[in-house]
């Protein structure tokens, strides 16, 4: 697929992942190193649906012309199912592992290590599940890619359109939730000042649990589109986590908009700049894509320790226009 298209698809998915990472960091102060594996969990959910039921997540949204008997195939496909299962996974991890640690007064470092442990456990479970799925379907499931299932829509790939639609729909829903519903306003209030939210009668714990649901759900949706762009193995999560963290930190961990900016900056530069470099230095360089993310991360941290949304742009703008 064309390079820029691929970069945009990848960036859309990184945005979904870093949105969740930033959200749970703001609400519960947990830097979740298992976020990448939450995505791979989504990939395996959609693989399962595909292998066991012949369901194709792309056809669900685009609508492949076919008979009425396929209706339920469309409805029951991977995006909504992954979202819900991913959300449940997020809630379980928070309630069973992190919340008890937070109640005992665990510091950020301890929570981080706990998520690393969760990541390893998920990796083990996904690996075991991949073996099991492979054995019952008699098709390899440890390594897979969905590109053969992609369809052409006009001059472009189905996954390009779908990833854009998915991100638009999810961002718009998130906006409606956070700005137009009472619970959403309560969530934003709890993010800014949890103790004041309690005083207003908000059960802040619900907003924390819900943020883990959203985070897990968004990650799994990203995971269910990711196999259309790259090969998935159970350990893929530990590779993409680098980009997710880079995106959240470059954007700024203080606000969820940070994840949007950071996600596009990291997602697009990582694939696009790496490609441009490879045309100069040869394809060997493609393996080092993550280095680009890390370089951007380091530069941002030096120039703007709070990330791009932490910079007071208005002040800088005023200073530069007045001088």
């Amino acid at each position, binding site marked *: 697929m064309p390079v820029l298209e691929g970069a945009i698809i990848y960036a859309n998915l990184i945005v979904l992942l870093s949105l969740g990472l930033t959200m749970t960091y703001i609400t519960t102060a947990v830097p979740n190193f298992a976020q990448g594996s939450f995505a791979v969990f989504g990939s395996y959910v959609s693989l399962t649906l595909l292998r066991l039921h012949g369901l194709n997540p792309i056809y669900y949204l685009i609508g492949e012309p076919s008979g009425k008997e396929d209706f339920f195939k469309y409805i029951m496909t991977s995006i909504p199912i992954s979202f819900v299962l991913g959300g449940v996974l997020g809630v379980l991890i928070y309630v069973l592992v992190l919340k008890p640690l937070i109640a005992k007064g665990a510091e950020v470092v301890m929570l981080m290590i706990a998520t690393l442990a969760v990541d390893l456990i998920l990796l083990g479970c996904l690996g075991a599940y991949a073996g099991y799925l492979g054995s019952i379907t008699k098709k390899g499931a440890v390594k897979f890619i969905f590109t053969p299932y992609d369809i052409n829509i006009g001059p472009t790939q189905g996954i390009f359109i779908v990833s854009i639609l998915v991100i638009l729909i999810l961002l718009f829903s998130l906006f409606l939730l956070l700005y137009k519903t*009472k619970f959403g*306003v*309560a969530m*934003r*209030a709890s993010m*800014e*000042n949890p*103790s*004041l*939210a*309690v*005083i*207003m*009668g*908000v*059960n*802040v714990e619900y907003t924390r649990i819900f943020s883990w649901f959203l985070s897990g759900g968004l990650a799994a949706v990203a995971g269910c589109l990711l196999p259309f762009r790259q090969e998935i193995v159970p350990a893929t999560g530990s590779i993409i986590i680098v980009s997710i963290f880079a995106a959240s930190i470059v954007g700024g961990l203080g606000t969820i908009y940070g994840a949007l900016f950071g996600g596009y900056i990291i997602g697009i530069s990582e694939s696009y700049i790496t490609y441009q470099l490879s045309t100069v230095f040869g394809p060997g360089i493609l393996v080092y894509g993550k280095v680009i993310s890390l370089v951007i991360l380091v530069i941002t941290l030096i120039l703007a320790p709070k990330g791009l949304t932490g910079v007071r742009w208005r002040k800088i703008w005023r200073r530069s226009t007045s001088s």
Partner: protein
Amino acid sequence: MILTQKLNAGYKDVHVLFDINATIEPNKITAVVGPNGSGKSTFLKAIFGLASVYSGNVIFKDNDITNVPSHERTKLGIAYLPQVDNVFTNLTVNENLKIAGYTLDKKEFEVRKGIALRAFPELKDFLGRKSGTLSGGERQFLAIATALIRKAEVLMLDEPTAQLSPKFAEIIFDKIVELRDDFNLTIILVEQNITRALEISEKAYLLVSGRVAFEGKSDELRDHERFEKLCMGLV
């Protein structure tokens, strides 16, 4: 209205309040005064459940609420206005009011919002503005308005006039008296401005080093011959 019985409270291993017995009477203003660090804010937090209570009880309308979670105390009718950070600065004025009515149904919320805006008509002009851009006085108006929306019977104000210009402080003191009379509120007022607080209140508690140094009528405390010394904890 509210009783505390032999209340010992603080923050984990920092013991701040010792054996506080207090009686907050309905429809009156009770002033809580004392030097900095004497435990006035902690007293309000203990009543609201935001400080750790080691022993003793908090009774609200004959019910022991010592173990009720804080967010439920809001529903019972206790509104607490913290000393600092008492509005959500990233939210608009309107959203702040909305959150204040979190526990109410829609119809009731509209009614309460009307009441709050009638008490603070100034707020109508900047409903859409981010609260972080309000001046100190306006922010305090908003904070008290959010307490009104919460349909409270008891209003606990922690230094509502701190950092305000004398003019705004005076407006706030007037509003506090108005609120008591118009809404039959029971008010606990923690204040640095002891003179004004004792003027508008009926009853007063003087806290010194986490203990009650004086309890009685406000004018008694004001006229107390050893008032200065009491404040310094010398008696």
